């Protein structure tokens, strides 16, 4: 494998110094004179019609500059999902509507000279509601006579709105029923996930203002600046040329910011008042009214022969998208498309199900994007099958998982809410992931130990394997521009959206590797719709793989331009290389600095700006792979599950920056452990969330984490920049099944509903 100079190095995060010294880099670290503060009035009902809304008292309050309700904003159906155009999500949302569809839905917004005036104004808005029957259980959504949540005539793109169905799939390859009948072993079960929230430390925030040209500028904590600009233009009826979206540093997103959630309101306020306007969600709003993971009920039915070869996989899903269908179809498709190809030995595969509306908070994109829910069911079912067959679940997985050079019909059949793209897996290090994880974890030794380690205290050992994708093939595009300065330094301009992941650093490393310069000689700018070229944004595990390849192409073009000048200057006829900012002629030892080339290009001869822009669309979405192993301790007196050791062996191709890669892996594992152990919104009988705060919704702390070991299994993905694939999402899929499997191994109880609270353990033990 080729040795790289910059790729594969643990270079310092390019924005790291600013972050550790607390520089003003986030959206809110910026204030403008005369800025207005916004607040949103939220629905107290899960489902209701607004019979009358009167904002005149609020408008009269001193300091109030604008009040918006459905009466004075454009009515246009749209989706808040920040996806490629045309979006696969239904157009079922309005800036404000006459109907509210969940507790926390938008009713009105106020912009005032201070936050306290805005808050006071909210209490002056008089709203008369007519409460409607609500759907608080996704099973009820499909029943005859169920209330219709989206009865608006404008709705587009939902499968069957009058039946509350957003998306429906009925896909079969082979003959699943026959194969199940013919199987020697079958298992079946339903696994259920919860309402989990992303909890980025920085809440959604946006600030709008008009620049000196009269252009609407929006500084926003967004993962999708270009999609935000496009959606705002459509929604507000103003041309794209009149909108500029700036993404500063982002305080975490995890999918919650792949949405246009508040930009429309600050835009309306600024357009109306001509003054800067700011809106930030409170933590409660973040939990209730932003976006969540899709709670799913995933039914899996597996069949295998005596040799342990899978013959059939049947997956049926009921996905709850909440009150609006943003990301509903695509998250659902991903629950199948990112899981089923993993076991490509099964020739009979069925994927069916529905995505339904309920009068509960709105699910959206969440790191893992459906694969998390799918793997919980699939990987627990695989363990159950292994138990039935009385073989090691690790060996059952080894017999059946996909390998390099192989394919699965699912790649073509299931895509982004529609057909996908066929592909053959080129790089797959899953065999090595399983073997290396097995060794470090001491799987064989541990599985032979007595499970009771003290009276009432049991240890158990579980595992799961998984894959994800890298970008959305033949849909999403990324581009990058690189410019050279006269001192031999460079500027990298990307629309790619570093939301804390370190992608600016990764992209700098890719550019520098290709050109032949150290990272200190490049400055990265991301992202500004007026000054950086288009990129789809940060989602679908795209940035390293897709934006990285765009950067590599741009860097190659820039390098060619540099070498063209160098050939003339050196009078060289032979090959030239660039190493550490020095152009060298191979063989003669003649050298030239990049500064000499830069100065000449700007001021002396054959004058030009050395620069290039390149774009990239991928025809494939190469999966990263991982094998996870977990040791848990369960106290049968209290029901508490404590993870002790977690081993993750991961193939993400070439790790461009192993330290940042490790950070992505550990961060996603700990988030996934939160799904397994503690996280979940709880609702009362009227659909009101009871725990929308960090005290009652338990995100794991430093005291709750196990020892975590990461093994990077390096492969080389031919279609990725310098062999890289993605890594940001995959590992969030492991903890739910691995922990459930480990608890079964400890106690013989099957946890099928997340989170696995102490109460649920005690119930299964028959103690309460």
């Amino acid at each position, binding site marked *: 494998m080729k040795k790289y100079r910059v790729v594969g190095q*643990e270079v*310092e*995060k390019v*924005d*790291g*110094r*600013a*972050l*550790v*010294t*607390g*520089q*003003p*880099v*986030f959206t*809110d*670290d910026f204030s403008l004179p005369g800025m207005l503060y916004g607040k949103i009035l939220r629905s107290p009902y899960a489902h209701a019609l607004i019979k009358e809304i009167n904002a005149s008292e609020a408008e009269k309050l001193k300091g109030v500059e604008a009040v918006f309700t459905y009466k004075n904003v454009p009515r246009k159906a749209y989706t808040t999902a920040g996806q490629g155009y045309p979006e696969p999500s239904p157009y079922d949302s309005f800036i404000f509507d006459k109907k509210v569809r969940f507790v926390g839905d938008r009713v009105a917004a106020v912009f005032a000279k201070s936050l306290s005036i805005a808050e006071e104004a909210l209490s002056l808005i008089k709203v008369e509601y007519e409460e409607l029957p609500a759907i608080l259980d996704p099973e009820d959504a499909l029943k005859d006579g169920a209330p219709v949540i989206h009865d608006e005539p404008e709705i587009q793109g939902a499968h069957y709105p009058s039946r509350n169905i957003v998306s429906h799939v009925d896909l079969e390859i082979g003959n699943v029923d026959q194969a199940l009948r013919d199987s020697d072993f079958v298992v079946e079960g339903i696994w259920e996930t919860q309402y989990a929230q*992303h*909890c*980025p*430390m*920085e*809440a959604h925030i946006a600030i709008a203002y008009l620049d000196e040209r009269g252009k609407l500028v929006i500084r926003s904590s967004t993962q999708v600046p270009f999609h935000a600009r496009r959606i705002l233009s459509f929604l507000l009826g103003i041309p794209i040329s009149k909108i500029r979206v700036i993404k500063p*540093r*982002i*305080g*975490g997103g*995890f999918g919650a910011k792949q949405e246009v959630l508040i930009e429309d309101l600050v835009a309306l306020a600024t357009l109306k008042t001509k003054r800067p306007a700011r809106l*930030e*969600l*409170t*933590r409660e709003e*973040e939990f209730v009214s932003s976006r969540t993971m899709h709670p799913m009920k995933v039914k899996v039915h597996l069949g295998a022969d005596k040799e342990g070869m899978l013959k059939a996989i049947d997956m049926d899903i009921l996905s709850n998208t909440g009150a609006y269908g943003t990301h509903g179809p695509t998250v659902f498709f991903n629950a199948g498309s990112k899981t089923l190809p993993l076991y490509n030995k099964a020739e009979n595969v069925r994927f069916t199900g529905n995505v339904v509306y309920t009068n509960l908070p709105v699910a959206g994109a969440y790191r893992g994007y459906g694969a998390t829910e799918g793997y919980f069911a699939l990987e627990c079912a695989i363990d159950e099958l292994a138990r039935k067959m009385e073989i090691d679940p690790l060996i059952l997985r080894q017999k059946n998982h996909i390998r390099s050079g192989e394919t699965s019909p699912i790649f073509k059949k299931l895509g982004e809410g529609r057909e996908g793209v066929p592909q053959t897996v080129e790089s797959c290090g899953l065999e090595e992931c399983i073997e290396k994880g097995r060794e470090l974890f001491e799987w064989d030794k541990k599985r032979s130990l007595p499970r009771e380690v003290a009276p009432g205290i049991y240890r158990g050992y579980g595992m799961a394997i998984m894959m994800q994708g890298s970008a959305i093939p033949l849909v999403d595009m990324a581009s990058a521009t690189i410019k050279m300065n006269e001192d031999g330094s460079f500027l990298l301009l990307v629309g790619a959206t570093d*939301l*804390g*992941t*370190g992608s600016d650093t990764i992209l700098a490393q890719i550019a520098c590797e290709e050109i032949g310069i150290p990272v200190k000689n490049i400055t990265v700018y991301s992202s500004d719709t007026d000054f950086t070229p288009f990129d789809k944004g940060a989602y679908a595990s795209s940035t390293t793989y897709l934006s990285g390849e765009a950067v590599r192409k741009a860097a190659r073009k820039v390098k060619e331009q540099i070498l063209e000048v160098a050939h003339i200057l050196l009078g060289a006829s032979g090959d030239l290389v660039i190493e550490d900012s020095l152009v060298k002629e191979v063989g003669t030892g003649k050298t030239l600095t990049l500064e000499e080339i830069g100065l000449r290009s700007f001021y002396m001869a054959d004058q030009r700006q050395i620069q290039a822009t390149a774009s990239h669309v991928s025809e494939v979405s190469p999966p990263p792979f991982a094998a996870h192993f977990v040791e848990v301790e369960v106290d049968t007196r209290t029901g508490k599950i404590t993870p002790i050791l977690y081993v993750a062996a991961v193939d993400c191709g070439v790790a461009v920056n192993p*330290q*940042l890669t*490790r*950070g992505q892996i*550990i*961060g*996603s*594992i*700990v*988030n996934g452990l939160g799904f397994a152990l503690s996280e979940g919104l709880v609702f009362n009988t009227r659909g009101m969330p009871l725990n929308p*705060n*960090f*005290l009652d919704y338990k*995100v794991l*702390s*430093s*005291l709750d*984490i196990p020892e*975590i070991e990461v093994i990077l299994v390096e492969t080389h993905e031919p279609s990725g920049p310098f062999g890289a694939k993605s890594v940001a999402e995959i590992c969030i899929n492991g903890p739910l099944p691995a922990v459930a499997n480990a608890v079964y191994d400890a106690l013989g109880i099957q946890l099928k509903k997340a989170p696995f609270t102490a109460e649920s353990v005690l119930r299964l033990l028959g103690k309460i």
Partner: protein
Amino acid sequence: MRVQFKLNHKEVSFNVHPGESLFEVLRREGNYEVKGSNCRDGSCGACTVLLDGVPVPSCTILIGRVEGREVETVESLGDMENLHPLERAFLENGAVQCGYCIPGILLVAKALLDRNPNPSREEIEEELSGNICRCTGYVQQIEAIERAAELLREERK
């Protein structure tokens, strides 16, 4: 009312409303290095400052309580050119992702290392438990604090 206190070793005096929190006053006066998750109940730790050397979530401190006392924000550690050993260790150990929780966590770590130059892993985990980091999963932050403790002990030699 007016309140006077020491902020990052300098005397400051601000006109404030008695109902305001230290967090609100600091942000209003341009101390943008103090970040807030909008939890407003001290449960996330992002807005942590040192009050007479003790880490506290500034959103839970009424401004009147700060009169005559000493407040430190992350500005009192290093700057872009001269990083504090903690800041250096955080960068070198990959302990920073989005960076939003980092100023608070650095101050918690500083208070710990001031009190105990050689903390055990358990002590670090205990100390960090009031600060949520959703990106990193804490492991690299704990390693970074161990590394910073080493760096600081070497400096003292």
